């Protein structure tokens, strides 16, 4: 853990706000700038900031690498699953209009799920890559 008090206190204040902002970007992407990719990157940055300030071991206890690896695949499967679900509902792959009775509602639902999948994958990929970079010197040498 880094001993800089100011950095630690400020990052403690900032990390929840950054995560909240990521969720805002994620779920407000239909209405304003942003979307799953940006939200995922911001959320990943919050995890990385936590790891930088409080050490890799603490960060890996909070965000276990096994869970992050599962989330990497879960996000992409959520995206693909939405597309497959559209096929089962009688549409084409990723044709969200088939997901609900009203085509527009189906589009809203599809976009929400797909963006969520992108966000989960991107956030966990960013954190995983950082953990692999940062933990390299300690693990296998």
């Amino acid at each position: 853990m880094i001993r800089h008090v100011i950095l630690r206190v400020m990052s403690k204040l900032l990390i929840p706000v950054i995560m909240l902002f990521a969720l805002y970007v994620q779920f407000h992407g239909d209405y304003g700038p942003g979307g799953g990719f940006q939200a995922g990157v911001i959320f990943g940055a919050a995890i990385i900031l936590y790891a930088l300030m409080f050490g890799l071991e603490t960060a890996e206890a909070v965000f276990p690498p096994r869970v992050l690896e599962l989330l990497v695949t879960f996000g992409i499967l959520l995206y693909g699953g939405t597309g497959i679900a559209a096929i089962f509902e009688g549409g084409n792959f990723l044709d969200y209009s088939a997901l609900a009775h009203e085509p527009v509602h189906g589009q809203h639902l599809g976009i929400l799920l797909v963006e969520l999948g992108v966000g989960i994958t991107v956030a966990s990929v960013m954190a995983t890559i950082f953990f692999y970079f940062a933990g390299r010197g300690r693990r296998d040498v």
Partner: protein
Amino acid sequence: MIDVIHIVLFTFLAVIAIAVIRLRDLFAAVMLMGIFSLLSASLFTVMDAVDVAFTEAAVGAGISTVLMLATLSLTTSKESTLYQRPQPMALIAVILTGAALVYATFDMPRYGDASAPIHHHVADYYIARTEGDIGVPNMVTAILASYRGYDTWGETTVIFTACVAVMLLLGGGRTYYRWRHRDDAEGESDGP
């Protein structure tokens, strides 16, 4: 007025690019690359491409800088000062390529030209139909996630593939497993 902002931002970009080339301190170079991305994001914002600016700020100025710093902590933050003979062929190649690129920009439509081909291929369809088809105020999200959902699916797969590649290159689960059980294995091999 907007032209002045463009010129100032582009001048800053050029200055930072030259500074990054000339710097030997890689830590400062990484920081300058972050500022470079932030200036690019400002340029995109001035050009009303808010979503692109958002991505550039989050990825270029945020994550890339952090990953570069993580890499520097693994290697060294000083560029090796091995003197190399000037390469005139390299300079000629760079100047020729640059001249070709500048020549190609003369064929491009002017910035903000409403009759440019890019604004008439499928853009008209998106602008006319997004409200009724998708019902989402942000047209960029509608295009990315729904009209071009297949492309975004491919992009997400690319990110996934990058993650798998990093895991394989930087020591995956097997290496970690070997490390954890290293003492046992050594004990066995030393025994007989």
